[in-house]
């Protein structure tokens, strides 16, 4: 019991993220990176950006899923170890946004893999991203 609590605590306190751009316009991506920069410093919450999907707990996706990235997205998702979560950052990642109806676009992230939190915005402000991640972590508490 105590153990379970400890593990859960550790999970909430140490969410390592991996960032995957599924065809975004870059704005969401730089806002994600900006959350690591001194002004927002996501490391305060224990967030580290990792390059290898094996090391990460949270997959942060931005952009509408293009036909070309669809399979890679699934692949990266599968490479991640359980427990894993997916956060869709930006309007595009939520629904396809302004790119809805473009022939190269499949739709939002949830048209391919399950999503745990949606952060709308175009781009989502770094504060909004932090807000989303904090909300996600809160939901893990129970």
């Amino acid at each position, binding site marked *: 019991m105590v153990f379970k609590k*400890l*593990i859960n*605590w*550790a*999970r909430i*306190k*140490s969410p*390592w993220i991996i960032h995957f751009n599924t065809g975004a316009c870059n704005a969401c991506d730089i806002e994600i990176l900006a959350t690591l*920069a*001194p002004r927002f*410093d996501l*490391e*305060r919450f*224990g967030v*580290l950006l*990792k*390059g*290898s999907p*094996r*090391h990460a*707990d949270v997959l942060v996706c931005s952009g509408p899923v293009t036909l070309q990235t669809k399979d890679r997205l699934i692949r990266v998702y599968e*490479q991640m*170890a*359980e*427990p894993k979560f997916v956060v869709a950052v930006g309007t595009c990642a939520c629904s396809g946004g302004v790119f809805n109806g473009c022939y190269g676009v499949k739709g939002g992230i949830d048209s391919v893999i399950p999503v745990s939190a949606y952060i709308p915005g175009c781009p989502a402000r770094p504060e909004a991203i932090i807000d989303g991640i904090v909300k996600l972590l809160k939901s893990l508490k129970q």
Partner: protein
Amino acid sequence: MVMTIFYILVFPGFLFLSAYGLAVEFVDRKLYARFQNRKGPPWFQPFADFVKLISKETIIPAEADRRMFKSLPVFAMTAVLTASLYIPVWSTQSLFPFEGDVIVILYLLTIPTLTFFLGGWHSSSLYSTLGSVRVLTQLFAYEVPLLMAILGPALLAGTWSLSGVSAFYAANPIYALVNIPGFVAAMIAAQGKLERVPFDIPEAETEIVAGAFTEYGGRLLALFRMTIDIEMVVVAALVSAIFIPLFSANPWLGFLFFVIKTLFVVFLLALFRSVMARLRIEQMVRFCWRVLTPLALVQILIDLIVKGFVQL
């Protein structure tokens, strides 16, 4: 007997070192963050990371050699723990000193490096393989200057036991002044040993993802990270025991000095890594042979000369 087990398992062995290793990691990360004008992680961060990794699913790549893949982190950890037994913690004396333990420590410290190499090699992933080749290349570059930088002060002290060296400088702190070039060389070589900027070439994330660790995850990665943390403690302790003559006969005060000294070394390490860019592997090798090794040689020369004068 009970005491020995206590020494090995609790203090200054396994438990203490793990805890201190995590603390040192925190200090390092926090300082790094502060050097970059940001807030940095909370104090429990390395611990939370560790617990989380331990509890995570461990995936072993299908192509990897399972037994090797799993046993290497344990092996690496054991090696650094063993090395710690020869490091003085609360006085000039380590737990099990013997003549020649300096060399043994250095050898034990190469074992983690070798396991990183093997671990990467056996993951059969491109990035890991590349990372492991870099690990090995780099090992040959910094090992010599590191050994030589430590050799000099030992020559002056006239003993091959770390406790003996410490005791010598504790008695004659003034001699530590002549060892400054060696200290510089050892610090830089340590940066390579610990694979940190500017020598974090083997795990350069922008080039080869996470190098040898790319395919490691969960518990095994936790062990590797812990190994690196403890290695940092051991290296910091080794360097400070030889080059910083701050000891006390009082065990409490001595322990306090130990902490201060190691943290000072960690501070320097963090500072180094925050003000430099990563070198390329061939630049690193060239630097080690052209600059670092001569520097260490000069150190040996100085020590021999000083020793000559002392004996006159």
